[in-house]
């Protein structure tokens, strides 16, 4: 059964007629300058590079190709100068001061480490990017990823920020090797679908954490990270190209803002055998990192290189509304695809009795965060609570896990995500759920996890 796509029709309708004459602007960018722009959700602009060279977070744009941007805060940078044509409403300005020289040099410094690694048969640098919220961490990760792929590398990109998804839905932690160009219009690109994709798809490995902040439930967050690190390390061990390139790890801003967070950074550093830490924008964090890691050695005996990088002046605070819209967009995209490509999810009915649903313990989370070091004490409470479907679940997302319903909770926790379903209706009388799944397969033999993140407040259908 096909559900008509949402989200796609609206912008198209708004912009078909009026803007033909309206706002075509041509900007000349000088070398080393940046054109920063914001497009509100529900609006779109078309950008075309008329001449010169230009890149978005490190991905080079093709000349005379029309790019469409929706609901984004982004920037186009040029090393050599360029002329761009912009069609549509957006907030924009030109910036000449950028930290791009530092960033590109960081890339070249990493390139040197990669060359060394390949020569010696070792692992490329495992780079951790830390910094407070809205410091440009993800943008830097994207930039370094794009530069690496442009030079023929295959970086493994790890996202440990459950607030923002990478090729998935918020709430997941992912590992994704990048071998092809990043889709500049769609954030990071798309995970595989049944049809062709104009930009090569990326293949993420997803784990579900299901809460907004890592500190909400470190007892859940840490083992999932460990599992993610293990899978990534196994892939690296198997795959020489990725091994030579190494990893780039994005982190949630919240762990850069306090004691508990620093412990999580230490956890990530040890699990992923991080040997390079890039600190964005925060002096305090830099000195804290120095204190923690100056004498630290990774498992293979490497020391950690710590560098502080300047935050870009283009970083903007994203308010809650924007974050909310971003989340919704990610969810819609998962089920319905992007404007370039409509996907058709399926709805199906599931009996209450057939569904195995685990709810993430939040009370436990509260408890454990007040009990530092109480690792073993709370073990008996369990990770999840096996719950019966209820109207509470309406409009929530459930993560379908690659596990069996008979598996232990730890096994379910450590399993990777098969996909997501959306609870469209709960009929408590008939004891039936109506769910939206990306494709029409039975999912009842899989356990599902019900998290509180992402929060969905509106109906998808």
């Amino acid at each position, binding site marked *: 059964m096909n559900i008509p796509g949402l989200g796609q029709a609206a912008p198209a309708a708004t912009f078909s007629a009026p803007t033909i004459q309206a706002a075509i602007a041509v900007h000349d960018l000088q070398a080393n300058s940046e054109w920063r722009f914001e497009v509100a959700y529900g609006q779109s602009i078309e950008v075309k590079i008329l001449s010169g060279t230009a890149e978005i977070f490190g*991905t*080079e*744009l*093709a000349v*005379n*190709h029309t790019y469409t941007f929706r609901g984004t805060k982004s920037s186009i940078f040029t*090393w050599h100068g360029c002329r761009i044509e912009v069609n549509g409403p957006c907030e924009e300005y030109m910036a000449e001061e950028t930290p791009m*020289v530092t960033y590109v*040099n*960081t890339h070249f*410094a990493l390139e040197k480490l990669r060359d060394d690694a390949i020569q010696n048969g070792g692992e490329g640098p495992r780079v951790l990017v830390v910094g407070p919220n809205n410091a440009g961490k993800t943008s830097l990760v994207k930039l370094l990823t794009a530069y690496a792929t*442009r*030079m023929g590398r*295959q970086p493994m990109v790890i996202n440990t920020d459950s607030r923002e998804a990478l090729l*998935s839905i918020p709430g997941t932690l992912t590992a994704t090797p*990048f*071998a*092809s160009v990043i889709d500049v219009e769609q954030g990071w690109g798309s*995970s*595989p*679908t*049944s*049809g*062709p994709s104009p*930009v*090569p*798809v990326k*293949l*993420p490995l*997803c784990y579900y954490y299901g809460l907004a902040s890592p500190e909400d439930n470190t007892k859940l967050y840490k083992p999932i990270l460990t599992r993610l690190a*293990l899978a990534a390390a*196994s*892939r690296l061990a*198997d*795959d020489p*190209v990725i091994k030579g390139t190494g990893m780039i790890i994005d982190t949630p801003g919240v762990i850069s803002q306090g004691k508990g967070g620093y412990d999580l950074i230490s956890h990530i550093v040890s699990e992923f055998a991080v040997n*390079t830490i890039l600190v964005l924008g925060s002096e305090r964090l830099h000195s804290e990192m120095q204190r923690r890691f100056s004498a630290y050695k990774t498992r293979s005996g490497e020391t950690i290189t710590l*560098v502080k*990088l300047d935050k870009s002046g283009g970083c903007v605070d994203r308010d809650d509304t924007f974050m909310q819209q971003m989340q919704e967009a990610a969810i819609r995209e998962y*089920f319905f*695809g992007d404007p370039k*490509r*409509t*996907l*058709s*999810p399926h709805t199906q009915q599931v009996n209450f009795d057939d569904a195995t649903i685990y709810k993430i313990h939040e009370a436990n989370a509260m408890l454990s965060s007040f009990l530092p070091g109480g690792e073993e004490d709370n073990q008996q409470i369990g990770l999840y609570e096996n719950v019966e479907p209820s109207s509470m679940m309406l409009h929530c997302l459930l993560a379908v896990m690659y596990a*069996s319903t008979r*598996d232990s909770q730890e096994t379910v926790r*450590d*399993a*990777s995500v*098969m*996909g997501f379903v959306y609870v469209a209706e709960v009929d408590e009388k008939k004891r039936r759920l109506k769910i939206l799944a*990306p*494709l*029409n*397969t*039975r*999912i009842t*033999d899989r356990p599902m996890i019900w998290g509180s993140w992402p929060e969905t407040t509106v109906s998808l259908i």
Partner: protein
Amino acid sequence: MTTEFSDDVAEDYKRALEDLTMNSRYEISNLTVIARENTEHALAISEALKSHIKQTSPQKKLPAFYVLDSVIKNVGTPYTIFLSRGLYSTFMEAYALVDNSVRRKMDEMLKTWKEPVPGALDTRPVFPRDVTGPIENALIKARTSAIQAQQEHTRSQQQILGRGRPGPAPAPYRETPTPPNAYRQPPPPVQQGYNSNYPQQQYPPAINGQQYGQQPHIQQPYGLPPVSRSFPCKFDYTNQEQRPPTQNYIPHNASAGSWQQAPPQQGYSAHDNSIDELNSDIANLITVFKTDFALNPLDGNIQKRLKALLDLQSIMQSQRLPPQQIAEIKTQVAKLSEASKATPKAPKSPTPIPVPAQLPQPNSLSSLLGPGGQGTLAALLAKQTPPIQTRSPQPAHNQPFNPPPVSMVPTPVPDTGSLFQKLLAAGILSAAPATSTPTPNTLLPANISGYRPPFTPIPSRTPLGEIPNDVVLKTSSLKIPRPHLISSLYEKLGAPCTQCGRRFQSNEEGKKKKTAHMDWHFKVHQRMTEAEKRGQHRSWYVDELDWIKSREVEGDQNTNNGDNTNGSGVASSSIASKPKLQYLPVPDDPALASSTCPICTEKFEMKWLDEAQEFVWMDAKKIDQRIYHISCYDDVNKAGIKRGTPEPVLGKRKHEVDDNIAVRSKIKTESY
């Protein structure tokens, strides 16, 4: 650190250039090789070459231009980028000074710059059009006005010629501002400011003082852009006082390196020149500070200043600033250079440079073409029909560089051959020293072409053709702009795909890849419309173990080019007709997805098949609701056994699940 070597390299290069007095193919090749082997110092070398062209005598300008030409055509980036900066002024200033025969050759050379490098795969012109265009326009403009202006300037030619000649006429400059002087007067305020700002070790002020002594007195109000007026006047009058007019010019020429043929005096564009000077001032200051920085790496002050200077330099190079700002920057730079002089400095390079800057800076043509200066270039063009032959003998200069035995190190000669053949054929180059440009090197042996410039190689040389990358993960290192590295993200990667901007090398392999890539774009477009009708959905994410085993293939580098790309049912039905591509889309049904081949009980090998844009099982075939390895199935069939009874699906699957769990727990135990 390569940055420290840059100065030495530039200096050596400069010296080598100074020895280049004629069209010696060997020397030019040599200089090209040096440039190629030192791409990490491209900026320094380019600057040295440019300043050499500007400063050297008119007779030596053409060979220097041939070096430039050879470097850009044989080495290319990053030199093209560095040398294209200010090419207009470099070219035009030289053009104004040389005689007609050299101009013809420069015209020919310019023509080759508008075309691709001969024999190269790259179809782009040697220099981008926006670099060569302005030069062409200026030349056309100059030529047309030359004819008009010829008449009115014939009268003044006598004076002009006299003035260009320091030898016979010791007092060419007069205080009476006669019209013919209009285009040849330097802008004194700027010059003076420049001199006093210049780092001492390179340009001894005493000499400079002599050199420019007479200039303030021929200052004239017209022919100068208004900009020059805004420059600080204090230099003007103080220097006027310090420097007695006129008399020092000839002694200076005679004593300090008479190898520089006194060039004809020139008019100045105060604005352009002041920027050029400011740029070179900044460059020099940077050099000084870099040395300081190397000596005291912990001195935050030096670090800060160096950073500020580098920033300033990039600003100056990337933008055109209003005159007021330039004036401001100028005073700042002046202050800084005062300060840098005050601080004790490390001994710089042991050998002092032969002070090419003693020469007045060559003209910028823009002043000549500018308002007020109309027709003056024309005058130059007209006037030079009898080429200026004035020169003093130059015995001293070439002696230190007496040629070593001809067969030195067998340096790889770049492919200048074809270029030279071409140039020879076009009459641009002559195999023997050009007769039109009289060579001063009478003291040198005839086999000068075998002569190798005294260039000392640097110990930290990177292998030929490799892009040097000296960045380390340290804040100070990360802040230094390295424009030459940017090219490894752009030009070095080849030309971009018009669809997605991905770049491909222009070699055989790159071309093949690009063809496959374009095919891929085409096919995707085709399939997109089909898929739109069919309806598509998001796939499940892959399982951990499959993910670990999967490999990222470059999305478009698929060797298969079958046309059965519709995935799903089509793929399985096409097996019969197309036995080459035997695969089955991974079943969506998880039960079936975890099944194994009933014959060998092994799992199917999953692979992302770009052709089908989905995950497939290779060598798999669905027969009666069961999936088999085609090879297994064929084997069994060949052996005459009809389909054996497959094991019950459920039991099989359970077995598989257990397997998975076993592996998982194995991984898990490893982790702790």
